[in-house]
């Protein structure tokens, strides 16, 4: 449905330095798929979205929406001629007209003209879909954040575009509202079966909403895949860290046996881990451990991948407790454990590591 090939775009910063915002990015979104561009601010994800929309003109590369090439060396289809709907980060609800007129706008400017009754029917249908039918005549400035988001979404889909673009669709909402709107948005996108491309810096949003996720860093896609793929098998330390709170222990590969098991001496020199990796002896490595994949207990586990430590801080989070465990050598590990049977601060503990749920990256 959408193909982006070798896209590039740079900007001149105010100080004259040219920044490569997008640096040769390619990806494809299948029909009815929901695709997320995930990355920290400034990684170029919004620029890609704006190039797809036609709000920016790329320097290089091509963009195809449906069967139509909308942007390459010779062609640049202006934004209003592309088959898109867009939800803006600020929602961009026009304050001078009410909910109905905001949503009716894409139909009102469409040529050839649509009959008034047709416009009315389609607007009310889509308002019903987003649960705003009863507020059709409400003035735009009287809408809450969540209502603005629904109106923005209704406006984006009312003319049944081939592609829905969403720019940080949830970042303007407060935390509790964000959770419920995320679920609603996911359900809605599935229900209407639209192809969607959205950008976000929130990994929870990307992982829960998208069928596929591309993680971006400095204008490039560093990893692309399904959410479980990316979460469980990050391609590098950046992705591992960006996708969630991760503990990183550094160490050196001490030995490697013929079955691919390596013995890693952790920095500080006191502890060793035996894991599966392809790194040669002598390589410096980072071992990434997710807090929810670690176990914590007062007795040493019966396997060899355990590290002793002392609880230095604990934070009760309702359904779980997050411990911070001082493991010596100036490092500490965060561990997420069930809320029942809490351990006290200062208690000596053992941390157990499941070798199948560890990511190891070599360092140059």
């Amino acid at each position, binding site marked *: 449905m959408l193909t982006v090939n070798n896209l590039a775009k740079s900007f001149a910063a105010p100080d004259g330095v040219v920044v490569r915002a997008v640096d040769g990015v390619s990806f494809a979104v299948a029909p009815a798929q929901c695709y997320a561009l995930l990355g920290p601010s400034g990684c170029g994800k919004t620029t890609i979205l704006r190039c797809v929309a036609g709000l920016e003109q790329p320097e290089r590369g091509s963009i195809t929406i449906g069967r139509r090439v909308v942007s390459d060396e010779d062609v640049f289809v202006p*934004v*209003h001629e592309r088959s898109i*709907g867009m939800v*803006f980060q600020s929602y*961009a609800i026009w304050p001078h007209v009410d909910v109905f007129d905001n949503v009716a706008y894409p139909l009102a400017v469409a040529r050839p003209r649509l009959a008034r009754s047709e416009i009315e029917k389609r607007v009310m249908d889509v308002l019903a879909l987003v649960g705003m039918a009863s507020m059709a005549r409400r003035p735009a400035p009287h809408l809450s954040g969540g209502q603005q988001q629904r109106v923005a979404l209704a406006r984006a889909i009312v003319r049944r575009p081939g592609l829905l673009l969403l720019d940080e669709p949830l970042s303007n909402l407060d935390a509790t509202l964000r959770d419920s709107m995320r679920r609603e948005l996911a359900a809605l996108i599935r229900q209407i079966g639209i192809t969607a491309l959205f950008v976000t810096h929130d990994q929870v949003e990307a992982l829960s909403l998208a069928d596929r996720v591309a993680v971006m860093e400095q204008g490039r896609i560093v990893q692309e895949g399904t959410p479980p793929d990316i979460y469980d098998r990050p391609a590098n330390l950046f992705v591992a860290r960006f996708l969630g709170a991760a503990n990183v222990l550094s160490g050196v590969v001490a030995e490697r046996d013929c079955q691919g098991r390596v013995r890693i001496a952790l920095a500080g020199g006191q502890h060793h881990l035996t894991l599966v990796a392809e790194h040669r002896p002598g390589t410096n490595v980072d071992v990434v451990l997710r807090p929810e994949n670690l176990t914590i207990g007062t007795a040493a586990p019966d396997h060899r991948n355990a590290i002793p430590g002392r609880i230095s801080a604990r934070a009760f989070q309702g359904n779980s407790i997050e411990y911070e465990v001082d493991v010596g050598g100036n490092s500490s590990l965060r561990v997420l454990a069930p809320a029942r049977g809490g351990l006290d601060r200062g208690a000596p503990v053992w941390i157990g590591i499941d070798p199948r749920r560890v990511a190891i990256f070599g360092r140059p």
Partner: protein
Amino acid sequence: MPRVDNLDVAAKAVLAVGVAGAIYLIAVPLAMLLLAAFRGPADLLPFEPGARWTFEHIRALFADPIIVTRILPDTFVFVAGTVALAFALGFGLAWLIERTDLPGREVWFSLVLLPLLVPTPVLAIAWIFLMGPNAGWLNLVLRAAFDLQGEGPINVFTMGGLILCQALASTPFVFLLLGATLRAMDPALEEASGASGASPWTTFRRVTLPVLLPGVLAPLVLVTLITAEQFELPLIIGLPAKINVFSYRIYFELNPLSSLPNYGAAAALSLPFVVLGMLLLILYNRLIARAESFATMTGRGYRQRRLALGAWRLPALVLLTLYVALAAALPAAVLLWTSLFGYTLPLSATAADFSLEAYRQLFANRAFWLGLRNTFLVAIASALIVTVLGMLLGWIISRSQIRLRHALDFVSVLSVGIPAVIAGLGVMLFYLSLPIGVYGTVAILIIAYSYRFATTTRLARAGFLQIHKELEEASAASGARWLATMRRVLVPLMLPALAAGFILLFIVGVREFTIPLVLYSPDNVVLSVLLWQLFQSGQPAASAALASIIIAVVLPVVFLARRTLVRRSLVD
């Protein structure tokens, strides 16, 4: 940001018309002026048959002793004196209203602005009635009170009198500019200094003053420029006082007492003026950019901490009352009284002196009705043109990436640096040379007035900057073309700013005196020019009646629009 090559044909056409209009209205007359300064002989139009290239006007300019002995010193004293007095008054009034607990601030705010709203000749005539050496009201009162003999003691027809009048007339302008500066100062900046351990004096010296400085210097430069451009009071009060400033001299070259108009000399004399104006404008733009960068660093939503006046409340009220009396209340009173009772003092008048004859004469005068129609027609039409142009230029400057946009920005600001008398001269030379039948009609006034799009461009720019760019992009992403976006989204959102710009320009148009005087013909007479003609021909009652009518017509318009007007003009 949209690039030009991504806009559709209709959008490009509309924008091109805007750019062409801006250039046509300002650059063409200016170019004509520039050429005229180097074409001679003097009494020929620059491109009349027989005219040729010459440096004689420039040479004459340097050879004329009057320039050095009279015009330069007079202009300098006039400008320096006026700016000093108007700045002291404007700053004092702005500070009292913006930063103290003075009672009735809202009402004072409106009262101080009154002189800004009526044509300057109205005020000039009123001040002559008040401070004329022989029969001025104030002189009669002072002579009676202190038992003085002869003329005076006040004489408006002196340099001092001219400076006083011009300062009274310019004070509201200074007041508006400095009020914005004072209001934009976040008290947290001063509080942070105090919390860092600085004494109040150190805070004032190291924080208050440096933060305020660009916001005070920029208005100072602008007021200097605008005072140097003044023509009305130098003509009406300065001429009888034999004071000879630049702007009047240019007019004199066009309307010499005994010979043909000297176009070349007038154009040559304009050149140094225009250059000086541009230099001051560049300086002003630098200062304002600095002031704005300061303003954007402070957050919004703070409450202004007001100084308790205490025992100083009375002197403060006296100062305000004195200003409003001299600049607004007494002028209005003397005009209304003179129109009804002729030139007698209120105390010595009897019921028999009352007469509506002045009004009767005026209403019987064809020129009055023509002038009334022309005044409104020209003010409305030029305000419309300038508002539309300002909106288009504002969009190009704030939203597009056209390389020309900085040049356009400068062109639009240029109008501030061109005195009305020079703008009138440029338009005159152009349309005298261009035989399309515009000269001498109302149309030439509409064209000539419309060079002032600096204000609307600035207002529109500020308006566009306040409209989130995504509101515009959302329209394009909904499938709307540029024109549809303009019509359905931007114009409705900008309406308050556009309306404010329109009203402002309408007032400027009604006030205008210099341009219609320079371009005068019996067909395109406007009320301000008619007023001066009546006054010149020795009809005090009739001119007072006309002045009263102008005040009565302008004030309601202004009060209806005051809220948006004041708020917007402060944003700028």
